[in-house]
């Protein structure tokens, strides 16, 4: 297990959690006629804090963090440059939404812009972490995984701020996300088993990893059971889902097999 992976795990999960929280808040802005009355400044500030925390964690995986700003130099072809830029834009949008919500002047336009910026970050992150060297991930799966993380943590954390009459909408978003996440996490490694050597090894590594099953249980199975049994989101559930997503991301970064690991063998 490479220690350099831990900052990436924390960066991706926390920044996606912040984006997810902002997305769910923006969705509520459009889905409910109450509008501003349902907008909690605390929720936007929490989203901002999570994204900022993620950005700080990202510095720890760099060999030379003091020159992190140089990462914006290669926007023409580098998805990592685009990731840094889009995360900065999303952070500015969330900050603007937070301060507008605090002053009671929140607008639908700002919420929509923030949601678009958030989805853009998830897409760019998906492209950044789907290089050709990982056949199992050289596709749309990282983007899908990241969307699931964002909405699962975002919707569950949103329950801490939402009013009682809006809670059913958040519960529906969370339930659908958890079902989609569970299905994808169970199906993807099984599909990989039927791929080439390196892809199949990735499937075997994920399925044999206790961390993978712990993440599936913690992030999807237990929360779905709790939602089904209680018809509400307990205060501890967002933290359980966050822990599950962190374990899952650790599997994503450490158990996915690189093509170079099989040089001299069949591909």
């Amino acid at each position, binding site marked *: 297990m490479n220690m350099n992976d831990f900052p990436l795990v924390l960066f991706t999960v926390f920044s996606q959690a912040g984006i997810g929280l902002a997305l769910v808040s923006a969705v509520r802005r459009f889905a409910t006629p109450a509008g501003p009355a349902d907008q909690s400044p605390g929720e936007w500030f929490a989203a901002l804090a999570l994204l900022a925390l993620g950005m700080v964690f990202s510095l720890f995986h760099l060999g030379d963090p003091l020159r992190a700003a*140089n990462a914006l130099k290669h926007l023409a072809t580098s998805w990592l440059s685009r990731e840094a830029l889009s995360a900065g834009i999303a952070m500015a949008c969330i900050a603007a939404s937070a301060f507008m919500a605090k002053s009671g002047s929140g607008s639908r336009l700002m919420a929509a812009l923030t949601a678009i910026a958030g989805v853009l970050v998830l897409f760019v992150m998906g492209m950044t972490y789907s290089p050709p060297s*990982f056949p199992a991930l050289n596709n749309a799966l990282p983007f899908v995984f990241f969307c699931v993380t964002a909405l699962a943590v975002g919707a569950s954390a949103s329950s801490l701020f939402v009013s009682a009459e809006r809670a059913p909408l958040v519960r529906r978003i969370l339930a659908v996300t958890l079902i989609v996440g569970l299905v994808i996490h169970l199906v993807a490694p099984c599909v990989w088993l039927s791929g080439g050597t390196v892809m199949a090894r990735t499937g075997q590594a994920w399925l044999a990893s206790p961390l993978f099953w712990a993440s599936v249980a913690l992030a999807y199975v237990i929360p779905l059971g709790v939602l089904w049994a209680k018809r509400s989101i307990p205060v501890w559930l967002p933290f359980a889902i966050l822990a599950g997503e962190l374990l899952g991301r650790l599997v994503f970064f450490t158990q996915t097999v690189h093509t170079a690991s099989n040089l001299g063998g069949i591909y």
Partner: protein
Amino acid sequence: MSKKQLAFFVDSKRCLGCFTCAMACKNQYHQEKGVVWRNVYPLKDSIYPARERAFYSLACNHCERPVCLEVCPVKAYYKRESDGVVVHEQDKCIGCGNCIRSCPYGAPRLNPELHKAEKCSFCWQRLDAGLLPACVQSCPVDALQVVDLATFDRPDVVQYPPGFPEFERLNPSVRFRLPDQPLQFRRNDI
């Protein structure tokens, strides 16, 4: 391809698996412990099912469209116009590891002391001085050679032999001559 593009020609028919090329690279650059720019990979039984063994000596392939250069967020890589060699400028590197994750051939490696990437430079300083790369010069059986793909036209070479991942978009600048298939004697042949 009309533009000059230097490439390594790996002659597996000749390669003994002696690791002299990898050691010459290490002697030339004194990389940190565990960091190798060139390595010798034995072909696995699934590809070469024989008691004899065959090898590929591999380093950076100085691809026509290098993924390391594309993904580097700080433009620490550039491709030389004069010969197509892909150079990594370590002083620009911020150690994000994106090239290490992205190269399907595993060419860029992490320097654990500097926490920055590094890779085979094709010994471009030696090339500019009219010398061969250290690995090529050291090979005792001429199993590793430098060729210019603009003029290299041998019918018995391949770009993607078994055991070497195929990434057409990158177009790796390396060519291989396959190892001889070992002779098998049956009772009736004797």
